[in-house]
Each structure stands twice: as C-alpha cells, then as structure tokens.
C-alpha cells in the first residue's frame, strides 16, 4: 500500500514538473509538491504503524476462535474497558457438544447438543436481565474444540465461565454443579500459567460460584445436592476464570417437556448465583508480577519455543492470572 502511494505521487510530480510552466513557478510548485508529499507519506506511515500494533494486540488478547458463528456472538473488543480486573461483568456461556458430537442421547431421540442450546438461550436472557454481558461459545450446531471454548473465556476480562450439560442418567428434574477437581499447585510459574492448568489459580473462586448456583438449584429442584461437587471435567481445566459445569438430569426423560419445564428455573438460579458471587470475585494473583495473556496451544507462533514467555504485545495492565502458551502435559 505504501509503495503504491509513493509510485502514484512520484509519477504525478514528474508529470507536473515537466509541464510547460515558467521556471520560477515550476520550482515553487515542485517544492510545494515535495512538502505535501512528505506530509502525506508521514501520515501514511503513522497510520499503517497504528494498524500493525492494533492487529498485534487483538491477536494476543483475543485469539480468534475457529468458529464463525461463535465469533459473531462476541461483544465488541472492549479489552481496555475490562482491564478493571476485579469487576465481574461478563459470563461466557457454553452450550456443550454440537456438530458431529451430539453428547448424551435419550431413548426418545433427545440430543444433549440441541437441548443445551435452548437452555443457553434462556440462561442468556436471565443473565442479561441482571445487567451482565454474555458471550456464547456457540449459537448453532457447531462443535468448537475444548481449547477454542476455553480461549473464548480466557480472552475476556472480569468473566466467569458456565458450561451447560444434560446427563444420560440420574434422578430426573435435578441439577448438579461441578467444579474442576484439584490440580497440582503451580510452582515456579514466573507469573505464567501452563495452558493445561489454567483453572488452577481459580479453583477456590470456582467453588464459591459453584456453591452459590448449586444452593439456588437445590431450592428449585428437590433431590439436587446442596453443594457443588468436584470432578475432572475436561472443559474446565483449561479455563482461566471461575468456571462451573451445570449438568441437568436427564435426556432419558419420557417427554421433552419435562426438561423444558426446568429451563426457566435453571436460568434464574444461574443468573442469581452469578450475581450473588459477584462480590467474591477477586482476580487471584500469581507468585510473580509478570503478566501474560491467554493463548491456546494451537495459537502458539511458529517461532516461539514451547513454554516461552508471554507475547510482547500484552499490555502491562493485563489480567495478572491468565494462562500462557505452554506445552500440553498431564494435569497431575
């Protein structure tokens, strides 16, 4: 772009200077033209530099998910606005499965991937009515990978993550909340969290959020436990935010209406649970003040060695406890 503009300007100047004008006027005109061209070139240079910086920031702060529909559901990039870290203002809502993965399947043909989408729509409305911003990992019948879903959550600041599931088994019309089971303590992190253990610093917060939602679900749905439980849920492990999985029982119900009847209660419990959790939301700090941004392993630049430090484009005031690029490994 820059070269094209230069060519155009220089050819113009040549044509003008070779035209039949008085010698004095020609010199004055050429001098003015050179000055104008310099100003224009300077302006081009400055604006193109800004674009490069902006592109780098966007790449590091919010790795683009591979799913187009999911991208469309994201709010505009309000990265700077969200840097006020200890304010919870966003819920990343994850209707599980989708695409070629139907999840649990009931004898009557119910598919978990379809039912959770409808639950998510109601939960989204309930959360928005509480003044919370909602980012959904999928809106249609797609199946983003576990890492893509986590990346969407990790790109947000001041967010919690809620993944919605329907079980195959269990007492009908009950709901259980799960948080990730214990992960090995982070040591010698140099301020970075391995992607595979992104949930580690958030476990306590996740449990608080889980208990808040579970207690409300227990009031609504008799037979549900009073406290959240822990399980090695794959989706939660790579999420650098307070994260819970809500599993509703079950696709084995005789009639779909039984599940549909639960949706408003589940939506209300989650929305009120998140609001109740809001005062507890404090971003956990890491041993080192070095800050980084969340990037899934698939987004590792080819030149960066595994486990390398955070991207240079990371703003200094970014999320202090976000996950960094790190090789995949065993969580235990």
């Amino acid at each position, binding site marked *: 772009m820059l070269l094209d503009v230069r060519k155009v300007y220089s050819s113009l100047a040549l044509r003008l200077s070779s035209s039949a004008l008085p010698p004095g006027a020609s010199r004055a005109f050429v001098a003015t033209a050179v000055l104008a061209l310099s100003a224009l070139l300077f302006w081009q240079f400055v604006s193109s530099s800004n674009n490069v910086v902006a592109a780098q920031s966007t790449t590091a702060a919010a790795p683009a998910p591979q799913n187009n529909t999911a991208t469309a559901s994201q709010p505009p990039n309000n990265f700077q606005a969200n840097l006020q870290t200890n304010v919870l203002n966003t819920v990343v809502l994850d209707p*599980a*499965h989708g695409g070629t*993965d139907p*999840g*649990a*399947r009931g004898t009557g043909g119910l598919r*978990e991937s379809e039912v959770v989408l409808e639950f998510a729509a109601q939960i989204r409305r309930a959360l928005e009515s509480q003044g919370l911003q909602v980012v959904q990992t999928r809106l249609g019948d797609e199946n983003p990978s*576990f890492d893509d879903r986590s990346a969407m959550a990790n790109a947000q600041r001041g967010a919690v993550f809620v993944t919605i*599931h*329907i*079980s*195959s*088994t*269990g*007492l009908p019309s009950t709901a*259980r909340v*799960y948080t990730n089971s214990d992960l090995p303590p982070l040591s010698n992190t140099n301020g970075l969290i391995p992607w*595979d253990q992104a949930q580690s610093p958030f476990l306590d917060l996740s449990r608080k959020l889980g208990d808040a939602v579970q207690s409300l679900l227990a009031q609504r749905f008799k037979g549900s436990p009073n406290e959240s439980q822990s*399980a*090695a*849920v*794959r*989706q939660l*492990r790579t999420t650098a935010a307070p994260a819970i*999985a809500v*599993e509703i*029982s*079950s696709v084995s119900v005789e009639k779909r209406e039984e599940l549909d009847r639960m949706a408003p209660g589940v939506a209300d419990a989650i929305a009120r649970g998140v609001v109740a959790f809001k005062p507890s939301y404090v971003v956990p700090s890491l041993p080192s003040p070095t800050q980084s941004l969340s990037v899934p392993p698939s987004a590792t630049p080819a030149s960066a060695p595994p486990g390398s430090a955070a991207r240079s484009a990371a703003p200094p005031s970014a999320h202090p406890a976000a996950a960094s690029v790190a090789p*995949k490994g*065993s*969580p*235990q």
Partner: protein
Amino acid sequence: MTPRWRVWIIVALAAAVGAAAVYFPTLRKRVKQAAILTQQTEEQARRELTQPFLGNPSEPRVKAKLFWASHADDAALTPVTVDLPLGSDPVLRAKQVLNTLLAGPVDAELRTLPPDAALLEFYLLPNGTGIADFSEALATSTPSGIASEQLAVESIARTLEANVPQIKRLKILIHGQEVDTLAGHLDLTGTFPLSPAPPPPSPPTKKP
C-alpha cells in the same frame, strides 16, 4: 346344534380367553427373563474367552472391597465386600479386582462400567502409577455425562485404592492410547490420585 350346546361352547371359549389373558403377562415375563439369561450367558461366555481366570484358587480368599453404584443415590458409590482369592502381586491383584468390578454386581442396575468393556492390561510403574488399559467399549458404552463418567472412573479408582495399596495414582488408557475424555466429559489426560486405605484402628490402650 342345540341352543344349549351353543351356550356351552361360548362359555368354554370365554373361559379360554380369560385364562389366556391371565397367563399372557406371565408368559411375556418368562420370555423376557429367558432372553436376559441368554444374553448374560453369551456375555459370560465372551468374558470367559477374553478374560482367563487370573486368580489362583489355592490363594487364600480375602474380603475384597468393590465399589458399585449405591441403591440410595445413583450418583454415589457404595462398597460391597466380596470373597476373592487374591494374590500378593499388586498387578495380578489389580487385574483380579478390576475384572470382578467389570463383571458387575448381582443387581445389574448398580453396575458402574459397561458390560461389554474389558480390561486389556494393567501395569504398575515404580513410582506407584497404576495404568489400566481398557477396551474401546469403556469409552463407547459408558453413558455420556459428567455424573455417569465420574461414577465409572471413581468405581475403578476406589476399588484399586481399597485393595491394592501399592498404587498411588491411576492412569486410564483406552485400547493402549491416551484419550482426551472418557465419553465426552471426564478428563483422562491426567492421573487420578488414590489415597491408601487407612490402617486398621489400633485397639484402645488401657490407662493405668
């Protein structure tokens, strides 16, 4: 035919229909039971072929604690004590208890692992990591869901924990491979910590 005969025939037919109506549900139940028995027999035959009996009958029978689903809460486990001729070798012991766990409890409703799943191999690393390699059916036939998948893994982990104290952590492989999840939810990329069974309580000491 005289009207009297006609009445007798109608009464006899009505009685036959009534008897059939009463007997039909019983007959249906028997057919179903026979089908289940056939299925179980086939499953047993397959198991006998694929899983040679690992226990040595001459080994002393010990009370092994196996964990199956609870009657009271379908998301919880309950220990069931079974007499098994368990050896002292931890790998053999692990295979024995896992095969018994896979065979399922008396009440099939309480099973935690799919009937068509099989233990292919069990390894014990020097650092105490037990590696259980199951057939593909464990992943494909376990009902998809956090609760059901956790119940399956917990039953394996708790059973090993109770019977093979040498195992400190458990790694589950499917057909020799590490997989991301069991059936879409539960993370199998890591290991599951096992806490050794607590020592039996020591008798209270009398104070002088």
